[in-house]
């Protein structure tokens, strides 16, 4: 007699977020390892920094395609191209 297995929740927020992270890393449009991905229920949140507006849009597009219909919210910022940050004097 087989032991009855408890219902297993495999479609968890954590698995869904990791699947999007993996896709972002390996999809040539994204190739981003540094983007933060969190899933909370029907919502997927993106964070972190990328090099350009186009890259942010590409990441958001790939994430949306793989979000399983969740609403995607992006807080990704584009790193500033400026004339450098403050100087640090190392004595």
């Amino acid at each position, binding site marked *: 007699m087989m032991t009855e297995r408890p219902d297993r929740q495999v479609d968890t927020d954590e698995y869904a977020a990791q699947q999007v992270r993996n896709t972002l890393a390996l999809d040539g449009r994204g190739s981003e390892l540094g983007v933060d991905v969190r899933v909370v229920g029907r919502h997927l949140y993106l964070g972190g920094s990328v*090099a350009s507006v186009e890259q942010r849009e590409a990441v958001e597009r790939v994430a949306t395609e793989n979000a399983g219909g969740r609403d995607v919210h992006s807080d990704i910022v584009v790193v500033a*191209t400026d004339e450098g*940050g403050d*100087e640090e004097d190392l004595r």
Partner: protein
Amino acid sequence: MIRLAAVGDVHAGVECEGRLRSSYQHVAERADVLLLAGDLTRCGEPSEAEVLARELADVPVPVVAVLGNHDHQANRASAVRAAIENVGVHVLEGDAVELPIGEWRLGIAGVKGFGGGFLGRCATEFGEPEMKAFVRHSRETADRLEAALGELSPACDLRVALMHYSPVADTLQGEPPEIHPFLGSYLLAEAVDRAGVDLALHGHAHRGTERGLTAGGVRVRNVAQPVLQHSYRVYVLHPKGTKRAA
């Protein structure tokens, strides 16, 4: 004094054409040399490296770089390196360069580095071939860094170690601790401390923090661009009275 401008993880894509030049062209007003701590490209494609090379071509100070893991993604690291070198950038991997900066001589040794983890929480060259290969690569890259630092001439007034992966956990604060073994290796810090350097620079840890210290007392700076949130940071070093780790 010697002024180093440094940044890592530029992740240049083909769409970056013309956008980085303005940042780097003015670097001579603030620094004597520009150091790039790996992940020059997003996918490791030579076309991306060529875009970055064009952005760097007119930079009026010496540029020294190491490659990062992204620069290996397309298995075309040699072509990426060649594209960058083609515009006069010194790309280091287990070797070193010495630059005259005014009255001073600056020595820079560089490697990509690798993961493996940090003291008390690191992988060991034991067990399956895959694990041995992982840790062996980490050890070998640290050995190459130490050898390169050892090749710098005594005439160097300042010595800098340039890496992509981190030598210390200090500068990983903000990253999940579980992934620290993929972000750096203490073997790099051990090489830095044994050889004695004035500053160690790395990138790779986007969610990390900027400042750290090796066990031997060498300052470490994480210059990943997402950490700096600027095109680069300038570090001012003073050749006289600099500290050498024991």
